[in-house]
Structures are given as structure tokens and as C-alpha cells.
């Protein structure tokens, strides 16, 4: 069976989620290879345009990883990321992209196991959704 292998972009903040991924590595935890990490200093740096750019360039899903509420290295960048994600979820639907394809998760530097679980679970979710067919769904939306 030819299993769908999703392409996922992970925007991980330097201080929490990126380090959790480092910890998962040093702990030799195995997880799905689909998430390709782009490091930003803070989840607050993740510009919604970057997310749309990822979908436009073939991403089937986008995972943003930040510090837990109250733990942001820059005080409140993660709250900015949260607000932007909420807003973008509404807009994605208008573009014909299932909002489930974008997820924001809080993963702290000590949560290697959680990082593994989040990546596996999100990969599985995107696999169930299938490849992103934004162009076609947009057309359908326009036609309807």
C-alpha cells in the first residue's frame, strides 16, 4: 500500500520546543520523520505569511512549537503566536485549507516525550486528512 507521507513544517522556538526536540534526540526517542524544523528565536516571530508560504509551497501541515504560557523566554511572544494562530484558523477555512492542518503546541525544554508524542500525533492527523489540495478546494468554494 502506498502510504501518504505528509510534508510538515515545524516552526520551533529556540528556548523551549527546539530544545525539547534536542532532548528527544539525546534520549534517542524515535518519531515520525515528517516534521522539518525551522528554528525561530520565539514562536512570536512566526509570521502568518510564513505559514501560508509553507502551505503554498507544498506543506500538508504546519506545527508551531512554543514555550508554555508564562514561560516565554521573551515574556509573551507565545501569546502573540496563540492569537495569530486563532485568527489564522478562521482565515485558512476561507482559503480552502482545513484549520486542523495548523497546530500550535506548548512544549517545554524538558518535555522530550511530549515533543515525540505531539509530532507523531500531528503527523497521523495530517495523514488522515490526506494531501493538501488547497487549489482544488478553493475552486470548489468559488464555484459553489
Amino acid at each position, binding site marked *: 500500500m502506498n502510504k501518504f507521507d505528509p510534508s510538515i513544517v515545524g516552526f520551533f522556538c529556540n528556548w523551549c520546543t527546539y530544545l525539547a526536540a*534536542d532532548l528527544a534526540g539525546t534520549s534517542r526517542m524515535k518519531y515520525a520523520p515528517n516534521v522539518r524544523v525551522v528554528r525561530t528565536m520565539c514562536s512570536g516571530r512566526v509570521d502568518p505569511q510564513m505559514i501560508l508560504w509553507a502551505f503554498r509551497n507544498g506543506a500538508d501541515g504546519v506545527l508551531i512549537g512554543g514555550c508554555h504560557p508564562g*514561560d516565554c523566554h521573551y515574556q509573551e511572544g507565545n501569546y502573540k503566536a496563540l492569537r495569530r494562530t486563532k485568527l489564522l484558523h478562521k482565515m485558512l477555512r476561507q482559503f480552502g485549507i482545513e484549520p486542523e492542518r495548523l497546530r500550535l503546541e506548548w512544549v517545554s525544554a524538558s518535555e522530550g516525550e511530549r515533543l515525540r508524542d505531539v509530532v507523531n500525533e500531528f503527523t497521523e492527523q495530517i495523514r488522515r486528512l490526506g494531501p493538501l489540495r488547497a487549489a482544488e478546494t478553493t475552486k470548489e468554494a468559488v464555484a459553489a
Partner: protein
Amino acid sequence: MKGNGNHNARIGVYVCHCGTNIAGKVDVNAVVEAAAGLPGVVISREYKYMCSDPGQELIVKDVKEHDLNRVVVASCSPHLHELTFRKTTANAGQNPYLMHMVNIREHVSWVTDDGAAATAKAQRLVRAAVERVRWHQELEPRQFPINPNVLIVGGGIAGIHAALTLANAGKQVYLVEREPTIGGHMAQFDKTFPTLDCAACILTPKMTAVKQNPNIHLLTLSEVSEVSGFVGNFKVKVKKYPRYIDEAKCVGCGECIEECVYKEGKYPNEFDLGLGKRKPIYMPFPQAVPSIPLIDSATCIEFKTHKCPKGCVEVCGDRNAIDFTQQVQEIELEVGTVIMSTGFKTFDPCRLPQYGYGKFPNVYTSLEVERLVNAAGPTLGQVVMRDGRKPESIGILHCIGSRDENTNKYCSRVCCMYSLKLAHLLKEKTGAHIYNFYIDMRTPGKGFEEFYKRVLDEGVSFIRGKVAEVSGWAQSPAEEGKLILRAEDTLLGVIRRIPVDMVVLSVGMEPQADANEVRRLFNLGCSAEGWFLERHPKLAPVDTFTDGIFLAGCNQGPKDIPDTVAQAGAAAAQSMALIDKGFVEMEPNTAWIDEELCSGCHVCIAMCPYTAIHFDAEKKIAVLNEALCKGCGTCVAACPSGAAQQNLFRDEQLFAEVEGVLV
């Protein structure tokens, strides 16, 4: 803004095997070949260990010979070796910020089962880095002067040792302690394992040295309430709570305590864990530093009724040190580095009701027994139980709140050894028969195993098994009036009932109750258990992810006194290394605003958590103060016109990287 070199980039790609750490999973040659075909890549190579001297020289040689102006190193996490490879390219005469690292070890080879998938992922990440590095620009690290003063938070043995080390080197130290005296837990201990040095004999001279050292500014009854700034330039607010006795005027004669309206101690003494009594005006213990009494406003008659004859004030006389009007004071400090030595708390055995703590008076915690066997303790070192009897048999229960799925999974590291020490001391003082109930004996340390042997030879019994229950339910005349310990003896394979007079619960260590608030105040990370997170468990054990803040002692995890002192020395040395350099260098990842593009919409101004951006009313644009910017990039993500940009994380760089991972 310099040219981005997009079209004339000459890129070198270096893929590391890391022995078999990467090459065991990722087909390194396939990654090298894929990179060689990418536009702009002049040379693509692999090497067994890129971070080794020959590996680095390989890069230096290539940069010079092939006139490279961009370098991509695919190896481990940038958190480990970004600085290494920046130095490498700098040695080759290249601006260090024209190098980019790809993490194909922690994020690829170590976490991927399938070799082909790992190779494909590594190839994608390398391609993304090649696309990204084209857009890199020459940058210079920011330099700031460093304030040579140091703040130390917590005055236990860790804080004391760090303070003395720094002060002896001529640095000005602010030592903040929330209790009325420094000394911490160590001051409460009787003897220390395995040498049986008296804790007070080795600690109190150091406490006195703190008081006498002109470079140490001691703030007791004080807590840090606010922290701002960054490495080299922290601004700290400290709340100093009233002692109601003027530290400048008091000579520590203690006559005021004698003259208190209470002739005997009436309230539980916190230092003795309630085993002794104190008056409303008291010294926590005789060797307290500062050697100045304090008044507890909750129990003092004067505070309650304003009708006390105030014998204390009268006897103090002209010295006039007693001041009932003292208020909370706010003190502002400016320091360059911070050492966190906030310590631990002991596990509360009430959480495990099967051990009867609080129900049976003769069940004690190990810390209480430290006070009980201490010659300066509430019983002057006589082991007299709460019911007035002397114990003839004692059970010491290891691992209370440690190695337990229901409480804390970790080993607290010190309990086996202090249990052995208490077994020895209790045996020496009472002649009682002593049973140690243990899961495993853990005695790794200099002289530790030898001490275990010694206690075995002294006739202390050891039963391998965890006590299930402490009860008062006698089943035979011999058990009447005793505490009955039920445990499986896992060596004999039988359930045993052992009646004893006294039970000692060897409680483990936990993070301080307010550790979470404290770490947020200082912007530190913590482990799942709540211990403060070190920058690297092996290579940076006292550094944190916040530059200029270091860890010492048990706030980072359970440890004994020798390890705590060693760590405190290391934290002091790290702090000094920063101070003596004279300046701090900071990552040039700050944001900037393109005047041409800024429309003056104000959006970025509200985004900045450091108020680094203000509005220039004349030019009608936003202006960013680089000195205040910490480089989060939140303003950049918010800017609707692309005027705000962040060095090292510019839009072009990140968009190129995103595109790269998806091709």
C-alpha cells in the same frame, strides 16, 4: 543593508558523520552529493568529526582556497556547536554570521528509525540551509559594558560559598536571604556524612566570614520582587521585610530577649521545626548571622494590644535599636550577574498517611531528628521523644517521597547516607536497636561505602524492603505501646512485623514551594519535577538559558554538601569569567526598522515586551532602540509592510528556509 549575495554566493557544505552517531543512520555521501548539485554550492564534503581540529581546518582551508563566502555545517544541534563553527569560519577570515548549522543528529539520525527517511530528511534540511545562507549578511556582535556586582539569591551553604569566593576576589556581592539568618538547611544539621564533621563547626565560621567581609552586602528577611535588564546589566528590586530591630544600632547582646514579657518560650521555633519554643522576640539559633534578634509581629503583645510594658525597649536603652514602626523597604540593585542558590524543601510526609506522621507523636522526619540529636537543639542533644521517653528501638525508613511512582520518581541522592549517619548518631546516643528499611543502598561517593560498612559493623540492622505501614495495632503483648512496622523483607521473602519506639522518615528533597514563581521572575526553565534547568547537563551544568544567571546547589536537583559547594565555586568562577572580560557580547539577532518602508502604523510598538520601539512623531515612523531589543522578532512578524526585520531571522532567510524544506 549590505548586498545579500544571492547571485554570487559561493557556498561550502560540510556534512559530519559524528562517528556513527549520524553516519549510522543517514547516508552521509548521499547528503553530500545532493548538496553538491544545488546552485551556488562550490564544494560539498563529509568528514568523520567536523568539530575536531582536522575537521575545522578542512573548512578553513576550503574557505581560503575556494574563496567561499557562505558555509553550511550539517552536524549536531546549534546549541552545542554553533559557536565552534562560527569561530572556525572567523578563523578563515569570514564573517562568522555567514555560517549556518543544520541539525541532522538530534533532529534526524537519533530520532528516525528508517535510514532512507533519515537521509531524505537530512537532504531537505541541508537544502533549506543552502537556500537560507545565501541571504545571510555580515553582522557584528553587540558589546555592552558589564556591571561587576553580583546578586546571590539564597544564603545557604551554596550562596555563602559563592559569595565568599567572589568577595575574596574583590567583587561586590549582594546576598539576599529571605529567612532572618543565613545558613540554610546545613545550619540545622548535626553532623555531616561520612566524616561526621559537626555541621555548625564547618559552617558557622563561613557565616561569620560573610558578615565580616566588606565586599558582601547581606540582606536578610529579603526577597527579590522584580528583575529586568539582561546579562551585564540587570536591575533588581528587593523587598526587605521589617525585623523591628535596627541592624545598624543593635549590638546583639540579647538582653531584649531576656526582658520580654514572656519569661519562657511560648511559640514553636521555626529553626527547630517546632520541637523547641521561642519568644516573640528571638534569635533563630545562637550562631545566627546577622547576630541580631527579630520580633515576630504576629505573636508580639505590643503589636497585638499596644499595651506591653516593653521591657525590651527599656533594656535596650540608649542604643534604641528596637523600632516597632519599621516598614517593608524596597531596595534597588544593579548587578551584572546573578547566582541562584535558592535550595530545596524536604518532602512533606503527611502526603503518605500510611506512615503515620502527624498521627503518632513518635514518628519524626529526618530533619527533625537532626535537631533532636544536635547538642544545640531543643533537647540539648538528648534523644527524648515527644512522649518524654527514650527510644529503645528505632526504625529508619528510607525513600520517603523518593523513588516512588506516587510522589517523586527520582532518587534524592542524600537520604541513604544521612540515614546511615542518623543510625550511627542515634545508636551512639541511645544504644537503641536500629532497623534501616531500604530499597537499595546507594553510597556512591568518597568514603561513603566505607561509612556504610562501619555502620553495619556497629550492629545496625538493615532490612531490604519498603515499609508498607506504620500502625499502633498490637497483636501481641510485646507489641503493646509500640509502633508496628510492616514490611516485606525481600531478601528473606517474608512479611515482617517489627515493633519500635520511634520511627524516622528519611524524607527526600523537592523544589521549593515557590520555585515556579522564582524561576519565572528570573526567566529560567525547569525540569518536569520543577528543578531549575541547567544549560547543558554535562558541559554547562551551572549555566542557564538566560545569559548571566547561574545555578548553585539543590535548586538544580538533589545533591549533597560537597557537590553543592563545588557547584557554588563553579558558579562564582563563571560569574567572574564574565566580569573580568569587562564586557558582554550579545548575539546580533536584534530587529531593525527600514525607514523607507515604515508606514507609521504603530503595530510593532505594542508588540514589543521591552518597550524598545517608540514612535518618532516628526518622521512619523517607528524607531527601534537596539540596546533594549532582545531579539524575539515578534514585531517583525506583526509588521504589515515588511519594514521591521530581524538580523539572522530576516523574512528572506526564513521564507527561503521554508521553501527549502519543502522542495
